[in-house]
């Protein structure tokens, strides 16, 4: 807000210092200066607003707000006040108030172009499309400039896009927008490219493709000049939608002649060709030629076209383009799909791929390119293919170990590519254990040998041979998953840690390490690894799952909270970020970008991961902080009736292929995997969000019992609350049923794909059912509260049984936690991370049961005291204590017992972990690890050990904290 133009108005001069203070972040001085000014000039409203900005920025929101409202109610029309209020409202996250401000201003100054345009933008910020449409027209009437008119048109389009009812969009908003543009066309008033683009957008959305084509190809289309190939792209789009295959084919052909490397046009060229063939399309009679030029309709023509493109590249002196060679493989692939014998005319895929390797084998992208076409090789040719490629890799003489090494980085890249291809062909997977171990030795040798080429590499650069190291790690993982030999995993960690020491910025090393540590249940090292990845904004959504999936589940609650916060901070800034640029897009006429920006915002708001971190963060806060459930729930503002998760429109933005993989196709992540993973995560999220809402509901149920006389007024409220709890509980039951069905499928994802959700381990730990029955118990107690102690023997017995069964369930859960999480046996280190996960579920469940216990106490306490009063009156000391009261005392005693056992268990685990001397482990045993490698492996083992200890400590601390609440359960 610094630039204020020329200082003419004396008020401007007076306000100047306040602006400066605010700009420099000196809010206190700004407030002082404003006060000083206000003493002299009471009516200088802007000074008040500026003071409010200062107050807002020093955390005095309420004061700032009321000061601002003082000015706002005066409906100011001076520019300074309006702009300052706009800034203030925006900072207060009340953009809707800006609209009120300018609505008042344009009423008072109806001819102000400036205020009308501010009003339009204010509406745009909050997405009031209808009002935008009107504001745009109002502006145009005052000042007939085209952009204003088209702002109004665009607002109609936005009404169409946002309309719930597609019919309304198609029959009302879009046709109206179309007519508005047509009017301008008829009057020959179209000026700018943006206006034509908007016209095209409207026609396209209306499905009027023919009309859209006419616009693009006609005189109006001549305005489409900014974007390269703008007209061609738009025509192509319409040809495809209209299935005008001759035009599509001819245009693709034309564009490929210009740029024989542009892949999208090969695809449209082949698509259209085969469509034409299927329709046995033939060239029309003279005079009716396709507007886009010659059409190709036979395989012979296509083959010749592709062969010509390749020859063109072969003859070139400069570097050849990959496009034509890959187009040749693509054509073979498509012909084969159609069972067309003509593919032979293009040559043998093996030879073609060998040639491609010859030309591009030294480029890192060679593997990405060829991987797509490996299926063209019959299985029996795979080894031969590898051999042929090997002949094209210049390696030095083999040494003692039988390995020859490349002499430069180009040769290295070629050799690496052969390794990658042979993995992608499944040749590595086909090896037996011995073969795989030898392969690892070879890869490691190449890795170490290649380090010499990167001695001068910067820290931010990769080592040329890094991918050997990564591949060795992949083979270790293969061995581990096949044989269950955990030594393979430890060595894998070692080799990756070593790789990272030479290449500290290699993201793939970090990602795989992160994944492996998580699988091992060691979250501590993961935090640093993730933060060293330096993930930026959207990446918190796309790869954040790697972190948050494991954070809470491994008992590192503090780190878990922090991890959720990373992501949450990003999601919350998204709303503000986007609306600013939607406005800019209007200003610059980038109409196509407006729906795109809104879709982007929606995509983030509906993100699965966003909903997950939101829910987990609150659950974590409850488990770790909520000594008194009611207070925490109130502070968090969780409303049990409210479900803010967009279940039907959930967007899975996770990048599930962020870890590089060269695995063969049959081991790769499939669409089905993606679907199942989303399904599983959604159900787990449902369990968690219902748990959260149930806890909130429990908290409200337990609201300090009201004095007797107001019972009646409160009755409705309370019964509504217990019915919410009932509804949520039955939803939880249903969800758990679905969950059981899903876990029965036992879906296995590729190792480098998505991790399984916590669903299966939650169910097998018994925590879900134990929590559900504890919450059910709270409802029964609520019933007792209304029935009272007399005439409720049955109910009391039922409650006592529930008390007992909850203890039994906890006992059983605890027994599932028994065992050593880390153990040294026969010189080997073995882990059982699932024990840790189960223990976390146990602790969470203890929290829930104790909250229910505390609610129980709050119900039973008044019942007991009124009973005692009665007894005193009757002086009757003979009658026995009601069953439920005895049962409760017994229950709290047993709960105390379970918690003590659990604490002993944790303590025992800590002790045996600490006693474990990893240094005593001999690592060399049978496998060829060098001294250094052993060092890295040991370091990884230490990290796991210390992380387990950390988890146990946090779990112990939490248990102790919760155990304290048992003391207050006396009734």
């Amino acid at each position, binding site marked *: 807000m610094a630039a204020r133009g020329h200082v003419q108005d004396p008020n401007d001069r007076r306000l100047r210092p306040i602006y400066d203070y605010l700009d420099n972040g000196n809010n206190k001085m700004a407030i002082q200066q404003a006060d000083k000014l206000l003493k002299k000039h009471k009516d200088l409203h802007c000074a008040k607003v500026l003071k409010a900005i200062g107050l807002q920025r020093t955390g005095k929101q309420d004061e700032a707000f009321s000061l601002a409202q003082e000015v706002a109610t005066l409906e100011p029309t001076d520019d300074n006040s309006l702009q300052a209020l706009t800034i203030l409202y925006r900072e207060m996250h009340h953009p809707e108030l800006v609209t009120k401000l300018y609505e008042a201003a344009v009423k008072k100054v109806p001819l102000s172009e400036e205020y009308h345009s501010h009003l339009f933008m204010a509406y745009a910020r909050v997405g009031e499309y209808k009002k935008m449409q009107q504001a745009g027209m109002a502006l145009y009437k005052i000042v007939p400039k085209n952009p204003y008119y088209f702002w109004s048109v665009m607002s109609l389009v936005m009404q169409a896009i946002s309309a719930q009812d597609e019919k309304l969009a198609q029959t009302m908003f879009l046709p109206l927008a179309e007519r508005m543009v047509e009017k301008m066309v008829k009057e020959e008033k179209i000026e700018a490219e943006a206006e034509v683009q908007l016209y095209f957008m409207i026609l396209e959305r209306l499905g009027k493709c023919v009309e859209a084509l006419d616009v693009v190809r006609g005189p109006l289309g001549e305005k489409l000049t*900014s974007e390269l190939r703008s007209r061609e792209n738009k025509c192509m789009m319409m040809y495809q939608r209209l299935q005008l295959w001759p035009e599509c084919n001819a245009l693709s052909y034309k564009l490929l002649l210009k740029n024989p490397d542009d892949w999208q046009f090969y695809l449209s060229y082949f698509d259209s060709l085969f469509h034409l063939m299927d329709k046995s399309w033939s060239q029309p009679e003279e005079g009716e030629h396709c507007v886009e030029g010659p059409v190709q309709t036979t395989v012979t023509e296509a083959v010749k076209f592709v062969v010509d493109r390749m020859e063109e590249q072969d003859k070139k002196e400069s570097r050849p383009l990959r496009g034509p060679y890959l187009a040749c493989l693509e054509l073979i692939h498509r012909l084969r799909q159609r069972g067309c014998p003509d593919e032979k005319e293009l040559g043998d895929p093996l030879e073609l791929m060998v040639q491609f390797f010859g030309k591009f084998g030294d480029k890192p*992208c060679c593997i990405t390119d060829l991987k797509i076409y490996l299926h063209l090789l019959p299985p029996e040719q795979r080894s031969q293919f590898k051999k042929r490629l090997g002949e094209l890799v210049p390696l030095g003489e083999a040494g003692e170990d039988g390995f020859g090494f490349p002499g430069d980085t180009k040769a290295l890249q070629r050799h690496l590519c052969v390794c990658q291809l042979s993995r992608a062909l499944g040749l590595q997977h086909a090896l037996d254990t011995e073969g795989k171990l030898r392969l690892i030795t070879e890869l490691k040798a190449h890795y170490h040998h290649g380090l010499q080429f990167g001695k001068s590499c910067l820290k931010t650069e*990769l080592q040329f041979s890094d*991918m050997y190291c990564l591949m060795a790690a992949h083979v270790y993982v293969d061995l581990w998953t096949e044989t269950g030999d955990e030594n393979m995993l430890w060595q894998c960690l070692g080799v990756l840690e070593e790789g990272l020491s030479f290449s500290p910025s290699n993201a793939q090393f970090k990602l795989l390490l992160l994944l492996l540590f998580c699988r091992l249940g060691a979250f501590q090292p993961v935090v640093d690894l993730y933060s060293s990845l330096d993930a930026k*904004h959207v990446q918190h959504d796309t790869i954040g799952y790697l972190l948050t999936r494991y954070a809470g589940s491994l008992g590192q609650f503090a780190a878990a909270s922090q991890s959720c916060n990373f992501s949450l901070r990003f999601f919350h800034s998204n709303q503000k970020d*986007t609306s600013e640029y939607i406005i800019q897009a209007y200003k*610059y006429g980038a109409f196509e970008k407006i729906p795109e920006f809104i879709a982007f915002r929606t*995509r983030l708001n509906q993100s699965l991961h966003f909903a997950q971190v939101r829910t987990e963060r609150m659950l974590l806060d409850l488990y770790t902080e909520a000594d008194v459930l009611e207070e925490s729930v109130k502070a968090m503002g969780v409303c049990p009736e409210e479900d803010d998760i967009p279940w039907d429109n959930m967007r899975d933005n996770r990048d599930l292929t962020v870890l*590089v993989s060269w695995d063969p196709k049959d081991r790769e992540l499939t669409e089905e995997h993606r679907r199942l993973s989303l399904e599983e995560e959604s159900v787990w999220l449902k369990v968690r969000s219902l748990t959260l809402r149930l806890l909130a509901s429990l908290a409200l149920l337990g609201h300090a019992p009201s004095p007797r006389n107001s019972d009646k007024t409160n009755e409705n409220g309370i019964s509504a609350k217990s019915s919410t709890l009932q509804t949520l509980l039955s939803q939880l039951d249903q969800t758990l049923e679905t969950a059981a069905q899903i876990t029965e499928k036992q879906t296995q994802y590729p190792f480098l794909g998505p991790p399984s959700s916590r669903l299966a381990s939650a169910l097998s730990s018994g925590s879900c059912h134990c929590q559900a029955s504890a919450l059910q118990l709270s409802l029964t107690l609520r019933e007792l509260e209304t029935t009272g102690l007399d005439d409720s023997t049955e109910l009391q017995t039922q409650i006592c049984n529930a008390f007992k069964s909850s203890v039994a369930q906890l006992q059983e859960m605890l027994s599932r936690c028994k065992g050593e999480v880390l153990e040294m046996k026969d010189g080997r280190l073995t882990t059982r991370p699932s024990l840790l996960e189960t223990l976390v579920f146990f602790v969470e469940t203890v929290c829930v049961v104790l909250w229910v216990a505390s609610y129980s106490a709050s119900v039973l306490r008044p019942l007991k005291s009124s009973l005692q009063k009665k007894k005193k009156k009757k002086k009757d000391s003979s009658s026995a204590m009601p069953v439920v009261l005895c049962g409760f005392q017994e229950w709290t005693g047993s709960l105390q017992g379970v918690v003590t056992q659990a604490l002993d268990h944790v303590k025992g685990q800590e002790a045996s972990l600490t006693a474990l001397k990893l240094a005593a482990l001999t690592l060399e045993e049978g496998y060829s690890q060098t001294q250094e490698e052993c060092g890295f492996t040991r370091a990884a083992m230490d990290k796991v050990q210390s992380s387990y200890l950390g988890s146990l400590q946090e779990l112990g601390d939490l248990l102790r904290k919760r155990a304290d609440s048992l003391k207050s359960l006396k009734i």
Partner: protein
Amino acid sequence: MTTLRAFTCDDLFKFNNIQAVLNFLLQYGIPFYLQYLAHWPEYFIVAEAPGGELMGYIMGKAEGSVAREEWHGHVTALSVAPEFRRLGLAAKLMEMLEEISERKGGFFVDLFVRVSNQVAVNMYKQLGYSVYRTVIEYYSASNGEPDEDAYDMRKALSSDTEKKSIVPIPHPVRPEDIE
């Protein structure tokens, strides 16, 4: 084999498949990208491999006074992922940006590059760019590295028939002196 197309917001979700530094392509904050998309969408082009991997992108803008013959295209960012280097992709993207600037009647295209980034400087020289001036401490210090000077490199477009815009300025300038 590369598909060259307009950048869209959804591409932000695909910026991960990079082997070395995770956010290699994702250098800026979202507002920065959105600003360019809102103002100069035609100047924001991505290159995509057939498997859908993002190979690189170029982002630029048009600015400067027409009257003073300073109207020009500016390269704000040009990134090619390490695994897609040495394929001529950067040159292709630069060529596209130049063509867009040419159509807008720009007099030249300019860009800033770290003086230490010899690889980039040489590449731009090969593409016809020359050092117009040095900008002192244009890149502010980060990660313990000191401030660094930039070369302002230019290439004349056809509107500048006499190639006046690229006549080098002998004395270095300060960042605040450039528009």
